[in-house]
């Protein structure tokens, strides 16, 4: 029984991670100019990695670099610029065509939309960043669609669980047997020790949502579809902002007193410590954001680079070794997925605990 489970887990992981190889471009192996081909290959791999980690306006499953064909579907672009414009991103034709609406032209350059003139000029400033105007962009990009997908998965799983509890009493059946220990762990080891028996129930909704959302988003990022939700700093910024808002709004008098006018500390020290504590209030959610973003996107970049190594070593030994290494790192990424979700949830619970702390300490 044990052996069967281990075998099936290994089989599934090999299948999923083996599919990664198909999401890269195929390279022509018989180029006569060796040096040039080498440099082009490395540049192409670098551009590919950047492109896979960033957001995109269409969902590409496969693409063929020789014919330039890509297989996927394009997503709607929604711009607000003197009125609402909605169109499919296939009008941009991967950045080759300008979209002409009214009397403004829009150009897609490096997965951002800019307003240009009729010729599509993009003026660059000293650092090489474009200085054109940008319209207000509310498009449904790949990340928005993926977040909606993860939310749908979460909703389906947990509403199904709630229904099965309502039907069968408190003993879980089926997939409830997997999720109940996790939910209880979050309640007993994360929420109650940090927030305390009296107030923890108010925050359980948020903590559970955050934990499962980050965990499932990280897991989806490991699949070969090239979806990168939590590796996008805007998404982690939003999550950290939510934690920040909840701590500020649930801060009671003790919390603010501890920040600005700590009891039991001489007055000169209080004046020095107050700005530092104020900075700490801002830095703690900022660190949450950076920690999650950096861990996940660094992991993605490492995996893509190792897979790109397969194409640089054009030999059986080198390619298979780099594939093996990419496999090992992918398994590590599975651990990092749940660990980062756990850390985010635990630190959020810690901050909520600080905010709602009753006066119990003897300073």
């Amino acid at each position, binding site marked *: 029984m044990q052996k069967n489970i281990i075998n099936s887990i290994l089989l599934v992981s090999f299948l999923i991670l083996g599919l990664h190889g198909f999401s890269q471009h195929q390279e022509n192996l018989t180029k006569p100019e060796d040096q040039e081909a080498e440099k082009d290959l490395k540049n192409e791999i670098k551009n590919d990695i950047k492109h896979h980690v960033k957001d995109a306006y269409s969902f590409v499953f496969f693409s063929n670099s020789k014919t330039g064909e890509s297989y996927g579907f394009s997503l709607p672009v929604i711009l607000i610029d003197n009125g609402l414009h909605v169109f499919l991103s296939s009008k941009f034709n991967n950045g080759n065509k300008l979209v002409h609406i009214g009397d403004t032209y829009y150009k897609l350059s490096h997965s951002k939309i800019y307003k240009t003139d009729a010729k599509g000029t993009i003026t660059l400033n000293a650092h090489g960043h474009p200085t054109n105007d940008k319209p207000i962009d509310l498009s449904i990009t790949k990340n928005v669609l993926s977040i909606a997908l993860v939310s749908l998965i979460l909703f389906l799983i947990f509403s199904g669980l709630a229904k099965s509890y309502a039907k069968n009493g408190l003993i879980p059946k089926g997939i409830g047997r997997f999720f109940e220990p996790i939910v209880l762990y979050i309640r007993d080891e994360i929420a109650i020790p940090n927030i305390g028996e009296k107030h923890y129930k108010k925050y359980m909704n948020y903590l559970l949502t955050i934990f499962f959302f980050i965990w499932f988003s990280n897991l989806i990022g490991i699949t070969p579809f090239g979806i990168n939700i939590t590796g996008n700093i805007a998404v982690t910024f939003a999550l950290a902002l939510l934690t920040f808002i909840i701590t500020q709004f649930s801060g009671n008098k003790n919390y603010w007193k501890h920040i600005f006018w700590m009891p039991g500390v001489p007055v000169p020290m209080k004046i020095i410590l107050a700005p530092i504590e104020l900075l700490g209030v801002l830095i703690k959610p900022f*660190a949450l954001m950076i*920690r999650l973003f950096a861990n996940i996107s660094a992991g993605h970049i490492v995996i893509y680079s190792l897979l790109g190594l397969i194409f640089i070593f054009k030999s059986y030994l080198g390619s298979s070794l780099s594939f093996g290494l990419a496999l090992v790192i992918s398994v590590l990424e599975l651990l990092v997925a749940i660990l980062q979700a756990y850390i985010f949830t635990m630190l959020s619970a810690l901050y909520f605990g600080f905010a709602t702390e009753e006066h119990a300490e003897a300073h």
Partner: protein
Amino acid sequence: MEIPGIVGAGLIVIGAGIGIGRIGGSAMDAIARQPEAFGKIQTAMLIAAALIEGIAFAALFAA
């Protein structure tokens, strides 16, 4: 491929490695003293390691 960037990245990794190594070491000592407390010590070790890694990654992205 600038030199200062790479040297900075190397220093950051050394710092993170030393920090997490020390945490791991003291966690091992604590577990050896009291094997029943393995769960709590492991939890605390992972939290401290994640905090240090957070700073290390943030600095790595800047370098």
